[in-house]
């Protein structure tokens, strides 16, 4: 195989994989405009399922709850993730550093059912002993925040490793107190990473079905829980409409944040060039 053939092989391989990844997404969008009651049979284009979605109060309540949980869990995850990333990055030697590092990365790969079951059993034990917490919003939040903290740690930590420590050293030399270095130099430099950690943990929480199912109590159904219970029963066209709305929102946010970070990167390069 010569190099042109290899190049074309590579291109078609990539194209096929992208097609595989995007096929279901396009189907969701296309069928959301289908008028037929049967999801799989095309009749004609209409906005029928979007109207149905607007009157689906169960689903709307679930979306609201998911937003609330995702927002709070992203905030708390970024907060703890910042601390754990900072601890692991800054302090090379302390008792149990290895344990902290493993505990922080294990939730990333651990099957959801294990995390969900073990957290629930702990919370139930806590409730038997202390009478607190009741299963509901708080318990779901704890589960999502555990997962989110692990992801936020990875994101913030990789930014810390890339970061130029000279700026912090300069601030120290100029007489900044450690907390001033942190708030005036480190934190602003970390802002893009904190933002992407926020988006990532928000999405994770907004998407989770297994942890929520274990940890939720009566009256607390998140959006994925409602979708999951409907999808188990069969196909439901208003889910397609909901999916399309989420896909549009997510795409806009992802594309905007990619463009933003590309611009930031370019700006940084220009600044560096100027300084030299």
């Amino acid at each position: 195989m010569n190099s042109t053939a290899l190049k074309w092989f590579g291109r078609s391989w990539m194209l096929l994989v992208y097609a595989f990844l995007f096929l279901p997404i396009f189907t969701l969008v296309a069928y959301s405009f289908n008028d037929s009651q049967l999801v799989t049979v095309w009749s004609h284009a209409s906005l029928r399922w979007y109207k149905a979605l607007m009157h689906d109060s169960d689903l709307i309540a679930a979306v609201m709850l998911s937003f609330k949980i995702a927002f709070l869990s992203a905030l708390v995850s970024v907060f703890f993730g910042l601390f754990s990333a900072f601890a692991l990055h800054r302090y090379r030697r302390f008792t149990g550093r290895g344990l902290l590092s493993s505990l922080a990365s294990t939730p990333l790969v651990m099957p959801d059912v294990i995390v969900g079951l073990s957290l629930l059993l702990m919370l139930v034990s806590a409730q038997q002993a202390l009478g607190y917490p009741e299963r509901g919003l708080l318990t779901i939040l704890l589960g999502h925040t555990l997962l989110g903290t692990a992801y936020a740690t990875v994101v913030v930590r990789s930014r810390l490793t890339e970061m130029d420590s000279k700026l912090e050293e300069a601030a120290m030399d100029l007489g900044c107190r450690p907390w001033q270095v942190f708030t005036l130099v480190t934190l602003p430099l970390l802002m893009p990473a904190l933002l992407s950690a926020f988006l990532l943990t928000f999405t994770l929480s907004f998407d989770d079905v297994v942890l929520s199912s274990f940890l939720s109590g009566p009256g607390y159904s998140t959006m994925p829980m409602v979708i999951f219970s409907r999808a188990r029963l069969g196909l439901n066209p208003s889910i397609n409409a909901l999916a399309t709305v989420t896909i549009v929102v997510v795409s806009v946010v992802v594309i905007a944040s990619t463009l933003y970070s590309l611009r930031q990167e370019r700006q940084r390069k220009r600044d560096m060039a100027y300084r030299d």
Partner: protein
Amino acid sequence: MASLMQSLKGSTPAWLTGRRLVIGLPYAWFLILALLPVLIVLKISLSEMQTTAVSGMVSWQGAWPQIKIDVSSYLFLAFDELYLLTYLSSIQYAFYTTVICLGLGYPFAYFMARAPKHWQALLLMLIMLPFWTSFLLRIYAWKTLLVNNGLINSALLALGWIDSPIEMLNTPFSLMLGMVYSYLPFMILPLYANLSKLDGRYLEAAADLGCHPFKTFWLITVPLSKAGIVAGCMLVFIPAVGEYVIPELLGGPNTLMIGRVLWDEFFSNNDWPMASAVTIVMLLLIMLPLTIYNKLQSEGRA
């Protein structure tokens, strides 16, 4: 960095409490939410189920604590063939998923890393985009694609390649498809991160010395990307063993996956000790790959 560390160490005791806070806060958080729950699961797996609650392990007889350990859940697990079969088939599905993801993902990551630099950000974003879109909704979409009167069967019928719809949904095929689909980005991302850092000079040297491109690939590129391969395989294999949502939506009632057994023991049978024992055995199964993964994580950042 060294001077920074020194000045940090040399500062006032106020900083010492700062250091303690920075380490202690996330430590307590992960100990309570990640380690303690596993210990409680272990304890419950060794208790017996009573009518209303799980029995306590320690009871007091006078001044002497009596520790009661009940291994009946584990004995049941060990002698019931269905559990054994389920564990084996979960590992099998996870293994095939990993192999197929590697087969699809490696060439992809390789060509992506060799694409023009200004294209790579876009290509990366296109991999991340489905990854950001709800996983549940994408699995649901496969359901609409794979049913008997779905898009794939209709297309094949229209093309005249088949005479009657192929039964695709609720088979091992649809399960594998869903698993590969969901986990593929987790394989591609670490591979790409690794391959994009590959030093091109090694490849040039091999070419200059008259090495055939295929041989160069096997002798240089693949060994140098070993860390990426291992990381990608762990990121796919470990969560795939315990997968619950995909088999539930795409696998039909007959595919055996341990995540579903756990779910049913807990939610349908309400048997907490049994669900806990299933969890502990699953944890033991993934312990080895998990240790490798954690070691890679700490090495990669040391």
